[in-house]
């Protein structure tokens, strides 16, 4: 579970970073967004269903090697986020096995911000400690994080005063600055203003290196074509195809009957 504890071993290109073997994920979730005892008691005897079983992933096999920049594409509900969460160890698999050969930093949909009443600084510290970093490691990275996020004095203000863009900026800064072996970014590049988008895009490019594996989930096809050297296409929980970015994305866009429309190319 120590997803961010430092591993000092260096990795060579082509070494395995993540190995997903025959992974299936099924879970039960509440239909109500906020299930309450009151609502449950009132609907008693009505026989209304309270939960829904979701088959999120089915027999997915996926190996990611160091040096690879893997783009993950698919329609909404294809299981992209579930796959990222299982790789990060946030949700244990129902079937199959996942092996991770390095430290993982995740930037999933919501980003940092654990307690909105606390300052950005306290939240970064707590988030880092929860991820298994030591206090010293966080201290070492903190200035860089604060600088990259361009939050200025706001870093010491309670996070409830932040705009959604500021949340996203801080989240991206944390995930990108801690120098993980494996970085997972889930649809987090499309937040922030144009300036920060550009900046985070460049940061991702900079992070592409021989001894690191990047996994990006995005709907921005132009970005993926530019950054990735490998693309996996998920559909309804299954891996449809994987390989050369241009080929897979072309096939995916054809599948969507959209062709190379500007709508999907534009969003970063």
């Amino acid at each position: 579970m120590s997803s961010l504890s430092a591993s000092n071993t260096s990795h060579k290109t082509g070494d395995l970073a993540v190995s997903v073997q025959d992974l299936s994920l099924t879970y039960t979730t509440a239909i109500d967004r906020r299930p309450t005892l009151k609502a449950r008691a009132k609907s008693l005897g009505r026989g209304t269903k309270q939960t829904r079983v979701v088959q999120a992933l089915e027999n997915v096999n996926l190996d990611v090697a160091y040096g690879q920049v893997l783009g993950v594409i698919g329609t909404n509900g294809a299981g992209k986020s579930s796959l990222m969460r299982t790789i990060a160890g946030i949700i244990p698999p129902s079937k199959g096995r996942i092996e991770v050969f390095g430290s993982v930093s995740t930037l999933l949909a919501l980003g940092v911000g654990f307690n909105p009443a606390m300052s950005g600084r306290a939240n970064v510290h707590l988030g880092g400690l929860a991820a298994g970093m030591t206090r010293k490691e966080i201290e070492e990275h903190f200035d860089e994080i604060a600088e990259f996020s361009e939050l200025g004095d706001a870093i010491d203000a309670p996070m409830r005063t932040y705009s959604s863009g500021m949340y996203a900026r801080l989240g991206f800064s944390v995930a990108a600055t801690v120098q993980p072996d494996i970085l997972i970014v889930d649809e987090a590049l499309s937040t922030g203003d144009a300036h920060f988008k550009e900046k985070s895009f460049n940061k991702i490019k900079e992070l592409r290196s021989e001894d690191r594996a990047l996994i990006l989930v995005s709907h921005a096809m132009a970005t993926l074509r530019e950054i990735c050297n490998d693309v996996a296409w998920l559909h309804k929980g299954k891996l449809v195809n994987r390989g050369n970015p241009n080929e897979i994305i072309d096939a995916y866009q054809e599948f969507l009957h959209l062709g190379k429309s500007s709508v999907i190319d534009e969003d970063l």
Partner: protein
Amino acid sequence: MSTPLQVYEPFRAGLPPLRKYWRSLWSRRTFISEYSRSELREQHFDSIFGQLWLILNPLMLSAVYFLLIVIIGGSGGAIRYGHLTASLFLFYLVSNSLTGGVKSVTAGQRLILNTAFPRMMLPISATVIAFFKFMPTLLVFMIMRTVLGLPFGWEMLWSIPIILIALIFSLGVAILISTINVYFRDIASFLPYLTRTFLYLSPILYEASALKPQLRTFEHFNPLFSILESWSLSIVHAETPHLSSMLTALAWALGVLLIGTYFFLSREREFAVRL
């Protein structure tokens, strides 16, 4: 090929691998202390007036209840007042842990959705916070019992294991209630009724020895009864608590912790998809 740093596999019997879980929980202990400190700072309990409020609140409550006892029961006295105050202070340790723990998991939503860590850290932090709030009240009671002229004796040392038992029990209820709250988000609004019921069922407004024998058998089902009975005997009366009470208290505390922990661990897998 090097060995993997992390392996994720399906849980056996719905539980995560316990040894690994415990190890990663232990390695995150700095989170628990840092979180508790930030939370106390956030609630301003690091300042002198914040601390004062912590002490003032149960002190005023004990004054009000004392008034009530004197009016309806007729008997006052230093021992009675000491018993009431000490019992209320310990009761507040449990009840603060309960009210702090209830939302600990649901409030940690963002962290749970984004990071892999043993979720049990969250209710544990709630209990640690409750304990930090309890410590200054203990000091106040020590000053108070000197002023009231209550007897001193080495038997008072029994209060140390009793605090430990109370902590185990507090941790158990915090873990249990935080899991329940994931499934029923309105459970917090029922808590005042629950704590009020236990406040009256427990030997706080009255002494355990004053209870009718018929009612006493019934009180075996109240986990707080034996804890508070032993507590009052040792710290207020400076007497050795009954061994049977201590054992009952310990059995209750460990039982609740065990059940709560099992419930939490078996449900933890779902937290990320239920929040």
